[in-house]
């Protein structure tokens, strides 16, 4: 009887240990998959748009976007920049099925300013790429979405 009990306890401990390992690894796997696939799409879009040109981080791009969006179907965004000779502004959303939102080409008669409303599918980073005559600059901001914009 006691032997049985001991064996049972041993087995159950061993089993729960295994299941924990299995659970942890499957979670890690899912995370890894999501990470690689989403960045792949973003990287591909970037490659197609900017053809391997160097994009540097910049703090001279100001993004005004709510930190949490209750409704992802319409998220207001305003982008301004203090960079000189801005020729274009692109908006990308990392986790959307198609990351590119819009790409605007500006003539020198315009101030580096754009304001619009976005659909954001899930909590994701919103990246801005500003093209100047000297190169490409980027900045990004994270937006929490409580209700996705793609089902709406």
């Amino acid at each position: 009887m006691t032997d049985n009990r001991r064996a049972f306890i041993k087995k159950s401990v061993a089993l729960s240990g295994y299941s924990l390992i299995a659970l942890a690894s499957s979670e890690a796997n899912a995370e890894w998959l999501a990470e690689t696939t989403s960045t792949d799409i973003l990287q591909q879009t970037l490659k197609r748009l900017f053809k391997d040109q160097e994009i540097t981080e910049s703090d001279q791009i100001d993004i005004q976007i709510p930190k949490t969006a209750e409704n992802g179907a319409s998220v207001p965004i305003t982008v301004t920049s203090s960079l000189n000779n801005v020729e274009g502004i692109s908006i990308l959303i990392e986790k959307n099925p198609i990351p590119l939102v819009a790409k605007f080409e500006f003539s020198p008669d315009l101030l580096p300013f754009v304001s619009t409303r976005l659909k954001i599918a899930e909590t994701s980073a919103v990246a801005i790429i500003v093209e100047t005559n000297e190169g490409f600059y980027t900045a990004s901001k994270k937006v929490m979405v409580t209700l996705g914009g793609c089902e709406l």
Partner: protein
Amino acid sequence: MSSIKIRTKRMDGNTQIRMLIAHPMEHGRNRDTKTNALIPAHFIQELTVEHNKNVIITGTTGANISKDPYFAFTLKGGNAGDIITISWVDNLGNKDIQEHIVN
């Protein structure tokens, strides 16, 4: 009636151009609630803004822009009486154009 509404405002020597376009901006992954069939993609692909017949903005837009899109830009300088022309083309080949005089 045109689908484009344009408003301009002179601010600190610059001109703010705001536009509101009536368009469904469907991205093709939504389903009809009654028939459960996919609603085909229908979104604005090109947006062009002209100032006195000179193109100042060309935009490539995707379906990630909200329904009935809103855009705002700022033009350096600009005078009363300038003509702003805004036009769009969508993925089904529909287009619309609207002129506005800065007041």
